[in-house]
């Protein structure tokens, strides 16, 4: 239970107290950024991997057959094989207009693109996405049209996952640094006030106060300061997040998928100030007990 009376003049506006509040505010702000980044990357990754797993893109190059420059026969053959394959749910050629659309940013909308000999793309949705099923489909397609290129997006996805993991590691490192900085701040602030109140503490000891009682008062102050700083950090983070979301909303559709943050992100953000408070409280308690245990 938290006693409301305080025998130590810890509330008296000392500069170190305000410094702790400020620092915790900044730290929780940084931690919020790390947590959000991590959640965003996770969501993005989920979105991407979900949209590409169980799909294949088959590319039938032009002029596979000199008599059939548009590869119509090869395409028919491949589609036929795919439609009959048990692991395939459905398969369809990508309409030429859509391919043109995809290439527009690189070639412009002019005549060139219309004359370009474009490969035929077939989108395949698999009913089974295990490696063995993918290999079976690949083999069947290769047999039907040697030279067809089959892409299961694995390589691309793996690179994206690699990037996401790197960013996730940075977020974790940030959290670790922030936690360390919080701990050190509390240790030094607590030691400073222990020194400032040495005489009061001596008197408390003489009248029979236990170390735990004195430590508890410091811990309570560290808790309150960190909660205050922590919620202040969240308070300044909220508009920041809103601003970033607004910036993101101005980007054209398609480049960034529309990602919904999971509820767990909001919970984690709300818990950050509480976690800061808990860490500060425990750190202050241990710091005081350690310092006092060296006394008579």
């Amino acid at each position: 239970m938290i006693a409301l009376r305080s025998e130590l003049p810890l509330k008296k506006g000392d500069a170190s107290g305000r410094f702790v509040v400020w620092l915790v505010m900044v730290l929780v702000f940084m931690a919020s950024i790390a947590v959000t980044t991590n959640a965003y990357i996770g969501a993005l990754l989920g979105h991407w991997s979900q949209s590409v797993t169980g799909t294949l893109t088959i590319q039938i190059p032009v002029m596979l057959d000199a008599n059939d420059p548009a590869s119509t026969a090869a395409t028919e053959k491949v589609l036929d094989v795919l439609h009959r394959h048990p692991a395939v749910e459905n398969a369809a050629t990508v309409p030429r207009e859509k391919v043109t659309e995809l290439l527009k940013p690189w070639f412009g909308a002019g005549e060139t693109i219309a004359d370009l000999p474009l490969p035929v793309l077939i989108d395949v949705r698999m009913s089974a996405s295990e490696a063995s099923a993918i290999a079976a489909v690949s083999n069947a397609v290769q047999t039907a049209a040697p030279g067809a290129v089959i892409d299961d997006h694995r390589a691309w996805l793996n690179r994206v996952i690699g990037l996401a993991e790197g960013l996730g590691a940075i977020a974790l490192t940030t959290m670790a640094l922030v936690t360390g900085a919080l701990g050190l701040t509390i240790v030094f602030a607590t030691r400073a006030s222990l020194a400032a109140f040495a005489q009061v503490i001596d008197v408390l000891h003489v009248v029979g106060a236990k170390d735990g009682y004195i430590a508890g008062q410091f811990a309570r102050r560290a808790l309150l300061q960190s909660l205050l700083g922590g919620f202040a950090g969240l308070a300044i983070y909220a508009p920041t997040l809103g601003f970033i979301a607004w910036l993101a909303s101005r980007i054209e559709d398609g480049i960034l998928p529309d990602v919904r943050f999971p509820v767990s992100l909001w919970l984690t953000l709300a818990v950050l100030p509480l976690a800061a408070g808990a860490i500060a409280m425990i750190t202050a308690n241990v710091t005081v007990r350690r310092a006092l245990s060296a006394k008579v």
Partner: protein
Amino acid sequence: MALVRKKTDFVGDTVQLEAVGLRYADGPDIFSDVSFTIPQSSFHFLTGPSGAGKTSLLSLMYLAKRPTRGKLMLFGDDVTDAKRTRLPAIRRRLGVVFQDFRLLEHMTAFDNVALPLRIANVSETVVERNVSELLKWVGLEEQMQARPSVLSGGQQQRIAIARAVVHRPKLILADEPTGNVDDAIAVRLMQLFVELHKLGASVIIATHNEHLVARFPFPRLHLNEGKVTALPPMQASEIGVVAS
């Protein structure tokens, strides 16, 4: 279990020093080989010239320092090397008046006096009653809500004494408790200590004031050049004669 004596039932000597020595850091011995016994419900003056080590000797007894050598017993308990966690319980049976008062500046006179009771989790109604009564007794009824810094030296000293006795300690250690008050108040404060002594507390009062010592028929422990000598109550005729 019947053989295990509860601490509160303690009968025996309040303080016992055996060949105790003390020095600060690398300094010389303040005293060495000091032995004496303070029986239960006794009253002693601790005399000796300035710098003799009276405050140092008291601070061993109120557990602010540990003896460099020898053995110290309080309430029948060997506290020479007692674990730190055992000390608060022992300290709560002591009442200490510091030579320099050591009142807490951020608290009112009332809260300063209430401190030992609150630390021991005594209920607020009892705190309210006992503290007010005691402050009235020492003549500070009007100053209960004042901060120590706005009070006179003598008033601060009375707060310091009230704080030392409010929790009815078994051993009272007072360091020059009447150094800042006039004779009339000094005698009244001494009466407070005598009352507590009659109620069963052991009292040790360190002082230079020979007139005060001569006024009360209590034995003396005289500290000089690192040695403690037990002396009988002082006679008025001894005033001004340096004890050796």
